[in-house]
């Protein structure tokens, strides 16, 4: 009786007689159907379109470009229909190569760009907005929440996302702890919290023989305009200054600017702990003076262990270096410049290629623990998906590295950022190498920057 009642109920629903055999048959078919649907879904993600050829350019860094190359190769293995012509260029050449590419119609469909160049591409309508859903985010808010605020500000404009953040890192003050101890200083307690403290400690650390430094206390990098900007930017902001006022006029020659430049030059002029002409740094290794122990403190992005090892095996083996936060004008304003790289899409790329690039970018950034393993301590831009991993947590001084990233201030957002960098670099050279008058040098710089801005507006 119970059996026949059950039979009736099922028959009522289905509308025809259901036997045990037909039921099992149905379940089997459903299972097969579901399996097929799910595998087709995977297939749809893996092979979204027919044969697609993409060009994709990134920046050069021994660890980072090797990792990106690995991910690109893996992506192509999983997506047989997509072929990627991947190339990398030096940090400084990449932007220029891309500009030339746009001019000649040979720009890549996708490329990585320094965050400071985002205004350059955006102001000329060169990059396309991204579809955050294709990148795996349910809403703009969820995307914004997943990255440090200062960094995301440069990638999102008018509620549209233009850059998919890859890496972001803040500058740190690297201390040679052995030399600290030699100077009877405690690297933990005596780490400089203000610029004045930095000057005083640098003076104690410096060793001079006649006019020649045997060891410099602290060093600002002087090898490239962008580094000059990265190092001067937080001092200017901490002093209450800004690069531009609301009307777009350059205000670097304000009182705050003069104070910031005075601080910048004080390590040489006031504390006499640095010789700006005495450096063995090169663009590939700006921290060479620190790694060769010619300098006790150096401001730089996080230094990978292999880079230390390649130049100073003893330092790497004994680990007598550590990063701390950069000083501030007061101890509560200890923040550096944070900068990084975004993946962007060429506005001229076809819709099909744009979608394929979204898949590529999402795939590259889908395993951030692997990213850390290969490229740490360069910090991925995303907050989630890597920082809690035990391998990350056990990395020396990881908290300092992440703190610098999260507290960092962005470089000024201006379409004339390259002109600004070159002008500021020359200004710093005049002040530090030729002892030029700070106010006069900054006045000249501001005039030149305003001229560049005016020319940009006229060109548009």
């Amino acid at each position, binding site marked *: 009786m119970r059996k026949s009642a059950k039979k009736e109920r099922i028959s009522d629903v289905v509308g025809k007689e259901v036997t045990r055999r037909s039921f099992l048959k149905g379940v089997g078919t459903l299972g097969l159907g579901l399996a097929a649907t799910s595998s087709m879904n995977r297939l749809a993600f893996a092979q979204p379109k027919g044969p697609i050829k993409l060009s994709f350019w990134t920046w050069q860094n021994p660890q980072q470009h090797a990792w990106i190359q690995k991910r690109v190769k893996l992506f192509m293995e999983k997506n047989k229909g997509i072929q990627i012509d991947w190339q990398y260029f030096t940090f400084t050449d990449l932007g220029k190569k891309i500009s030339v590419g746009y001019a000649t119609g040979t720009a890549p469909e996708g490329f990585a760009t320094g965050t400071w160049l985002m205004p350059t591409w955006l102001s000329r309508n060169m990059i396309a907005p991204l579809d955050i859903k294709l990148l795996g985010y349910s809403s703009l808010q969820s995307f914004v929440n997943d990255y440090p605020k200062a960094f995301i500000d440069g990638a999102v404009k008018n509620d549209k996302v233009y850059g998919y953040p890859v890496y972001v890192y803040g500058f740190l003050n690297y201390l040679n702890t052995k030399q600290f101890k030699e100077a009877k200083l405690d690297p933990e307690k005596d780490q400089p919290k203000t610029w004045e403290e930095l000057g005083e400690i640098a003076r104690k650390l410096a060793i001079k023989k006649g006019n020649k430094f045997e060891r410099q206390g602290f060093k600002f990098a002087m090898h490239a305009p962008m580094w000059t900007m990265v190092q001067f930017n937080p001092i200017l902001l901490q002093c209450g200054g800004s690069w531009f006022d609301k009307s777009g006029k350059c205000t670097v020659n304000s009182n705050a600017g003069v104070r910031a430049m005075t601080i910048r030059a004080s390590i040489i002029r006031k504390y006499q702990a640095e*010789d700006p*002409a005495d450096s063995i740094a090169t663009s590939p290794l700006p921290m060479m003076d620190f790694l060769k122990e010619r300098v006790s403190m150096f401001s730089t992005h996080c230094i990978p262990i292999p880079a230390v090892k390649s130049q100073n095996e003893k330092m790497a083996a004994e680990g007598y270096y550590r990063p701390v936060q950069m000083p501030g004008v007061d101890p509560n304003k200890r923040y550096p410049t944070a900068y990084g790289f975004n993946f962007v899409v060429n506005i001229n790329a076809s819709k099909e290629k744009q979608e394929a690039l979204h898949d590529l970018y999402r795939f590259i950034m889908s395993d951030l623990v692997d990213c850390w393993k290969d490229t740490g301590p360069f910090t991925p831009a995303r907050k989630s998906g890597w920082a809690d991993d035990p391998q990350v947590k056990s990395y020396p001084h990881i908290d300092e590295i992440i703190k610098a990233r999260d507290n960092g201030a962005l470089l000024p957002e201006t379409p004339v950022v390259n002109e600004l960098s070159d002008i500021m670099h020359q200004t710093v*050279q005049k002040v530090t190498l*030729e002892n030029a008058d700070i106010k006069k040098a900054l006045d000249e710089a501001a005039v030149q920057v305003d001229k560049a801005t005016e020319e940009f507006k006229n060109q548009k």
Partner: protein
Amino acid sequence: MLRIGRAQISVSRWQLGYESRIQLWGILFILPTILFFMIFKYGPMLWAIYLSFTGYDIVTEPKFIGLNNYINIFKDPIFLQALNNTLIYIMGSTIAITVLGLGLALIINTGIKASRFFMSSMFLTNIMPILAVCLVWRFLFHPYGLVNQFLSPLGLGRIDWLTNSYLALPAIIIVTAWRFAPYFMVVFLAGLLAVPKEIYEAADIDGVTPISRFLRITLPMISPIVFFVVVVSALLCARIFLMPFIITGGGPGGATRVLSMLIYETGFSYLKMGRAAAISVILFLIMMVFTILQIRFFSKTEEY
């Protein structure tokens, strides 16, 4: 020979004489070269001249703005500084290359022992990769580098070659002369070997001093070579880019930024291609002066 209906008529109508056919073949043979120059040399040059009258940011279409680029650059202190640097650099390098090249050639020409070895080893400076040369010289010019070590017995003390705005350009000139003088030494040597020995023998019989011999015989006899070296090295130096770019990056404070560097920065870094084109036209005019001088001089050269 075709003799079929209308075809026969058309062939005979267009039949060319022997000389014309030779000329036509000549034109056909040089046509690929002419096309190559038109497409890859003169075409881009004309395009650059056109761009110099436009506002062009690489991405959007060029906008015609007349002489604005030229007016603006002559008001721009950065351009004037680069122009000044370029002229000083051309002058300094040309003098250094000519004097050093001629001096080396005279020494080699005296028939010193192992002269071929010295000549070959000196010529190496010209075939070394420029990037390596620049990086090595950066370290040689370091405040505590080999150059200063070498000069220390003279009591000159520390010289900041690359970070002093008065010395950085002379330092680049030294590197230029080091690299190119041996190349022009070979050119001078060819000229010296072409001077007839009988003239020197006659001078020796007359008891001419070595200095008079050089000033009154050698120099006049090789004057076309000297002028050739001056003009060619000036043209070479006008286009210099990599040396200041790698050694000093144009610094300190723009003291070594030459026009070719400014063109590169203006065009590809600042995306002001119209302005960059205007600067390149001015550089072209500077080089044109040397070229015209060379053409005019060689058309009047006397044969000894």
